[in-house]
């Protein structure tokens, strides 16, 4: 098994790591970079718990080889809040009580962030579609959908305030 030296930016910080060719991005994050917020739910790309943003796109990190990530920008749940201030999607999930066990939450947050980055005013159907790959067994999704809708509004308000 060959070893690859890669350089990648995770949550704004540049890391250089040696990874075996069969190691997934999920394992790299959890086992080498100690970023355990990203969860392992199926190792088969079917549950969405390991969703991270790779170069701005949401991906199942269990389906991406770490060696392919040389030069990549990765955003995980740990990178959403800044200086103790939660991202609007995090704050909305908290305020809507859209959390129970919390195991799917990191993946949902990343899918939601990716959605709002490309579509700041999503419809209910677009939100449901954006998180259709993130399985949640506890909440029934309704509060999550409401929270993401609310996050879109909050984000708009924040942007307007920033412009003013």
């Amino acid at each position, binding site marked *: 098994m060959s070893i690859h030296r890669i350089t990648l930016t995770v949550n704004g910080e540049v890391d250089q790591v040696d990874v075996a060719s069969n190691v997934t991005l999920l394992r790299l994050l959890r086992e080498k970079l100690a970023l355990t917020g990203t969860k392992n739910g199926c190792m088969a790309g079917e549950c969405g718990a390991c969703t991270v943003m790779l170069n701005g796109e949401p991906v199942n990190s269990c389906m991406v080889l770490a060696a392919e990530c040389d030069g990549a920008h990765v955003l995980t749940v740990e990178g959403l809040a800044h200086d103790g201030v939660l991202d609007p999607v995090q704050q909305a999930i*908290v305020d809507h009580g859209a959390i129970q066990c*919390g195991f799917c939450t990191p993946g949902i947050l990343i899918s939601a962030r990716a959605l709002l980055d490309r579509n700041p005013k999503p419809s209910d159907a677009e939100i449901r579609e954006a998180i259709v790959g993130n*399985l949640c067994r506890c909440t029934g999704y309704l509060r999550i959908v409401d929270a993401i809708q609310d996050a879109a509004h909050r984000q708009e308000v924040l942007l307007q305030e920033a412009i003013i």
Partner: protein
Amino acid sequence: MVISDAAAEKVPHPIGESVRRVDAYEKVTGAAQFADDLQFGPGLLFARIKRSPIPHGRILRIDTSKARALPGVKAVITGKDFPGHIGLYLKDRYIFCRDKVRYVGDPVAGVAAISEEIAEKALDLIEVEYLPLPAVFDPEYGVTSEAPILHPDLGDYSVVNFVFPKPGTNISNHFKIRKGDVHAAWGSCAAVIERTYHIPHIQHVPIEPHVAVAKMEENGKLKVWASSQSPFAQRSLIASALDISPSDVEVVAPFVGGGFGCKAGLSMEALAVAIATRVKGRPVKLRLTREEEFYTAFVRQGLVAHFKMGCDSEGRLLAMENRFYWDGGAYTEYGVNITRASGYSSSGPYDVPNVRTDSYCVYTNHPVGGPMRGFGMPEMHAGLEQCIDELAAQIGMDPVRFRKINCVQGGDILVTGMTMHPTGLSQCLEKAAEAIGWGYKDPPSATNKRRGKGIAMMWKAPAMPPNAGSSAWVELNEDGTVTVSVGGQEIGQGSFTVAAQMAAAALGVPYDWVRVAGPVDTDHSPYEWQTVASRLTWSMGNAVYNAGRDARHQILEMVAQAWGEKPEDLDISNGMVISYKTEESQSLKNIVVYGIPKPNDQGWTGGPIVGRGNFMPTYVTGLDPETGQGPRAVVHYTTGAQAVEVEVDLDTGKVEVLRGVAAFDVGKAINPDMVKAQIEGGFVQGVSTALFEELKLKEGVLQNSSFVDYRIATSADAPQEVEAIIVEVAQDDGPFGARGIGEHALVPTTPAIANAIFDAVGIRPGAPPFTSEKVYLAMREAGVE
């Protein structure tokens, strides 16, 4: 909407307030730790399990020599190393198989290695030779005399005194109800209906798979870190299996990423423990793969349910005769109590004078049955609540009215002879019917679709030993803030938040002053039986409240002494001690740890404040083994009703749940928003089980062990709206009148959907899942166009 009979009664802050979850911030930032997130350093070993590929057979030979020789392998163990039995209610399980395998997936050997990959490779090098034996795949066949006996030693297994195995058969529990005279009653019935339902096995599917890490020290002390609903029960069962003291076992249980029952009792954790005993000083981690999760973790048992029920011409239920054959699987250590629970609740939430029930737990060569959200109630209500609709139709009565006439009320003599406590079931029924717009039909969204509405009721009691206990500590910190310690687990249901609310209310401090100590650790947390049965808000809530009152009492005694007043003239409000007599006040800050100085430097009064509290029901009695009768079968019943509106596609058979309404009597909603979240989440899980879920077992082999093949509801399947209605009829021994609400939310969903499908297209889909294919074929057969 909250409907309460105690609206005028004042409750202290923050009871009845929808305060934010205590664990919300950690869970949105990735900081919340789950078992797989804990770090163990380079000494960590990884375990994998060699499992039986056949459903029933004798082990002729196991050769582990090649696996042992593989570099990186540290231990290979088999059943011959561990003779002790495990099991919660009936000790019918070995940690590793010894002489026989009884299901596909039964563990025959375990490997510990320096990586998961090497451990996996080692499994292939273990040679096992089996002699296949005839198997049982149907519980009704399993009880016949032709069936092979799967547990010839059943008579030797140790068992609790409320479970009744029948040695020499495959019946590991037979629970009977004999109330009134069913046979005499049939003659008085104007309508009688008989139906059979085959309820499939399903899986819990928490998004977090099972994880356990075990480490045994050279001196025999054992530490386990696990994704667990039951750290204390696991401590006890592990100690008993290894023949060591529970005090030499420490179980640490961080946040649980969904449990729904499958992480209760002791299952795969025992495998990690057994392996760890052979590599002392090294932590050993076992993670179930998602595939293993589907067929080796507890499954929800299959059920073959025969119902016969009859009513008079006025619609009064006169008799019920039920036979339940539970497909308990290869080991029924936990399932025996599901058999019992469904027996003592077998009338459903109805007042029925004559009931005869036989509930059998039957060994089969299927995956191991265990507790799942609802504990037998969803399976039983799925058929029972469809029969009620059919019976009402036979006498030409509206199903809501039929339920109204027959629903159980306070003072009724229940199926076990117990007297029902006050309950708001009829209010739940009325409110659910009203909210769904019962009797009105909206036009379908397209010409090839049909709309329908359906309703169903439910009841469920916590199923547990009569003396399941809780305890709690409430400690004050230097600045007056409060740390609560509990042994009950946070599995997503919000138990830590409820604990914080109880402590704040009992003490008289603001909610945001309270922290909950985690993770639960049997060496550092107070005892809790298990986080199951929707019992924590009620039982643990009482313990926390009592601990808070104990701490409050200590504070008031101290201040009274310092001020020369009587404690009864003092109060704590918003974190201040106040005197109603002198109007003096004092912040809790400083005094609750350091005490209060006496005047003129003459010493000190008080000391660090630590409150302790416990709770255990003491009134539950045994039931007669022949009649199932006794004064008090259970602690209480949570009741409720659900109504749904569905749309059925005539071209495809696809059922879409448009809207759900759920009303439950929770006694008192400690946190109304979290109650609603439980109801919504449970409803959608109910929709998922009703429409999609079934473990497809073929000769004991699971055919659909992935999320692709075993579909659960996604965001696209959730209805547009779920309305939760809270009814509050107080529980006499609940904290502030509270009863549990957790499992209940999915119990009536399946029959409500089935009844709505009938209302829409006139076919009865029978047993779930109501897949497009099943509904389409049923419509074809019935000539629905």
